[in-house]
């Protein structure tokens, strides 16, 4: 078992390493000179060159990369070009805000999605199923800004229930923070519902049509017991993996949702950084997202292996 875990972690580390390389060198493709971006278009050429040297962007690429990555690992992420101050505190603050939003969305969506999928599966082929399935897949395909706008119009402009744009004041109570998070969470929830419900439905249907459910039913077990004890255990396993991959979509959605609702999370941070050619901020932000995603994926993989008896016994060998 330990060997399996180590191997999985090892793979993740390699992927992260590849990712960091890609991010760094992709950043080099972005046109524009950092010093120029900071000093503005009217500064003297000599000043620009001096600042470039100070920033270290005239060193060979490999050296820049190595110092960057070692700095990253130590936790110092450089200085933002835009704000002329260390990247970490800004990044961490933004990350926390996004985490709150993301966590809220996940907490709402996981039970909702699973319930929706299981119900759809239990009435497979009938009206309820078609409705849930189509709603889910349509909602999943709609851009977050579209659903966000509609939600904002309904709840904010129309019903005046929720604030737009949602503001979280420091020191606010937990409940009022939640209240502010509802509106931006809605588009995220809609996007994720479709995927999770679909996976839960597929897994449940496969279990329902299996031979072992037939055996269980023909033993004389009550339907509820069959579903609870035999079906769910097997159908929810693939759903767990999907939830992890949904973090990818979730983060992607964050960029748009945070822009729309002017929420100062990491999506917004990266957006501004890209526009302002603020490399240290940009690269640190993107790498952080990569790490988050990797953690989620590896976590899901490990969880699936542990929960699936077949894989667990094979991994233990």
């Amino acid at each position, binding site marked *: 078992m330990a060997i399996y875990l180590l191997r999985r972690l090892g793979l993740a580390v390699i992927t992260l390493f590849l990712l960091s390389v890609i991010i760094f060198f992709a950043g080099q493709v972005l046109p524009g000179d950092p010093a120029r971006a900071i000093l503005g278009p009217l500064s003297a050429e000599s000043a620009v060159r001096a600042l470039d040297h100070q920033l270290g962007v005239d060193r060979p690429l490999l050296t820049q990369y190595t110092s960057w990555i070692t700095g990253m690992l130590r936790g110092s992420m450089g200085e933002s070009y835009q704000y002329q101050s260390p990247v970490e505190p800004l990044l961490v603050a933004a990350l926390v805000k996004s985490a709150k939003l993301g966590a809220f969305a996940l907490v709402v969506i996981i039970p909702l999605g699973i319930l929706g999928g299981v119900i759809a599966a239990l009435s497979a*082929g009938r009206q309820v199923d078609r409705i849930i399935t189509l709603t889910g897949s349509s909602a999943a395909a709609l851009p977050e800004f579209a659903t966000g706008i509609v939600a904002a119009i309904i709840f904010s402009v129309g019903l005046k229930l929720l604030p737009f744009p949602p503001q979280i004041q420091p020191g606010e109570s937990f409940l009022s923070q939640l209240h502010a998070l509802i509106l931006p969470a809605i588009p995220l929830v809609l996007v994720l519902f479709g995927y999770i419900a679909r996976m839960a439905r597929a897994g449940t249907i496969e279990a329902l049509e*299996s*031979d*072992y459910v*037939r*055996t*269980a*039913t*023909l*033993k*004389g*077990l*009550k339907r509820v017991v069959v579903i609870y*004890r*035999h079906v769910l*255990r*097997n159908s929810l396993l693939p759903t767990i993996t999907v939830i992890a991959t949904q973090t990818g979509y979730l983060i992607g959605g964050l960029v748009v949702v945070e822009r729309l609702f002017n929420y100062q999370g990491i999506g917004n941070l990266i957006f501004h950084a890209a526009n302002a050619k603020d490399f240290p901020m940009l690269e640190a932000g993107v790498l952080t997202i990569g790490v988050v995603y990797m953690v989620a994926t590896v976590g899901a993989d490990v969880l699936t292996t542990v929960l*699936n*008896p*077949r894989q667990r*016994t*094979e991994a233990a*060998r």
Partner: protein
Amino acid sequence: MTATEETAIPGPAAEPQSALQVQHLDVTYRVRGQDRLALRDVSFRVGRNESYGLVGESGSGKSTVALALTRYLPRNGRVSSGSIRIAGRDPLALTAAELRELRARSVSMVYQEPGKALNPSIRVGRQVAEVYEIAGLGRAESLERSEAMLRKVQISDAGQVMQRYPHQLSGGMAQRVVIAMALAAEPELLILDEPTTALDATVEAEVLELIDGLRQQLDTSLLFISHNLAVIAKMCDRVGVLYAGELIEEGPAREVFEQPRHPYTMGLLRCVPRQGQRKDHGRLDAIPGFLPAPGEEISGCIFAPRCPIAEQRCREAAPPAFDTGPGRTSRCYLHEATAELPRNTPVDVQLSAPPTDAEPVITVRNLAKTFTSRGEKVPALTGVSLDLERGETLGIVGESGSGKTTLARLLLGLIPPDAGSAIELDGQPLSADLKGRSQSQLKALQIVFQNPDSALNRRHTVRQLISRPLATLAGLSGSALTERLTDLVRSVRMEPRHLPLRPRQLSGGLKQRVAIARAFGGGPRIVVCDEPTSALDVSVQAAILNLLADLQAKEQATYVFISHDLGLVRYLSDRIAVLYLGRVLELGPAERVFSGPHHPYTEALLSAVPSLDGKRTERIRLTGEIPSPANPPSGCVFHTRCPRRLPTGICESTEPPLAEVEPGHLMSCHIPIDQLATLQSTDRMS
């Protein structure tokens, strides 16, 4: 172990007459808005402690019967007419709670694939215990009784097995667990739907005996559903023959199989090879034509379109069930004429004898293949050496883990062998990799795969499929190609109108013919047939086998015929090789290998296969499971299960060489052949 004390469930005493009574049962499926009758006017009865067999090929509706009885038809199926009584109760009229009780107490089912019938995420012991819990027993007691039940189905380390998950059990062991679950509640009726089809011959024999023994002990009635006539003959007192949803004949099993009273039953019996039948004399007969399409409206007798003696009245009105003897019925106006039913194919044919060449066409020396799976080395084949003589049919027999499929793929170059292996074609070394083989070598070796659905590209037409090797291997084009194409199509007894069709539009038998035509397209000299009829119905099997025999004579080809079915191998093969755990244990002329003296494994294998001939030979019981190829036993790989193991210990320590014990007959056994001869004939006579 006393009968039922340890495993009993307290409950009311069982009551009425028959365990199962089915009367005029109609089952309808709704497909694409149309109603289709899957079962039509089926009536039969299974008495107390009686074993009733339901025989049918695919499309006969036999599985539908099982589903209808337990009220587990899919959503689009329903019982449209007729009645069912299980232990006196009608499952269709019960409330949900009563139905659960019926399923828990009165009727149980065992299905074909035991591994899938168990929940992969729950330990085996818990699943068996569930049955007891439903009856109201507590957790601890249920587990105790489960363990006792597992021992009853001859699982020796029951305690250990209880803790395992289904994927950790072999097929035979899993089926025993399922049987344990089914019999734990001591139901009045046990329904078995192809319970041993997925198991190896030796394991199948044990499981069948287990079922037989247990049901006598527990006083349970059996409804045994299978396509295998021999198994039914062995296990059942009475038999009903299903064809296209109708029960066309019924009666005591022995009588029906010895003196059938319906042309279909007779036709079916003629499709199954028995001792003495060979590809050139005593040929198997095929049943021409096809099953009626589902939903097709048939006026008259349902078998009339395929019946050689059908008359006008047969086509006009469906025959009722005639009384043909005590306890026997038949739905045929002409049932008395069944005994003289004319054949569809000649019983003897003249097949040109293979040319006698001095040199074998293929030599295999020290062929070995080791697979690496998850860090473990699994030797699939070890040191196999044999010769293939020109024009012969070499039959290769083995159970799972024997390596016979690996052997086929190695010969064809689809997988590379281990170092030290040598395959020669016409004295020239054959490259391990397909790419290294010359055009003429590619031409020379072809294969017919087991499953035509997998072997034929479903997006290509028949014309494309058969033409390809004509173009690439035979180098034909234009009118020469079309000529050869037409010729090939005729020789596999298909017609030009099939050419534009796709595999999906063809029946199983037709698809396999296309595969055979494709194999012969390039004019190969050696054709490997890997279980060519295993995926086909019994009635189609015979036609394909005879076709293969005829083609061999016409094209002067050499066959390697791989099968787990000993009867078929005996029918078709000139010589036979018996494989076990990747080694050749015996190699010799077909008749010698079959009638003996032969290797103890061959002996056990032969005694495990049920036969229609009714000779009840004392079965050689093999102890234990087939060892995993990853951990082959030391010395002679068969010694762990060999009933004739020598007491000197040589079988455990030394692997016997494959040596010639008689002219042309090789064996890998420490027991000298005359000793074997004596031992085996004495056992046969006792």
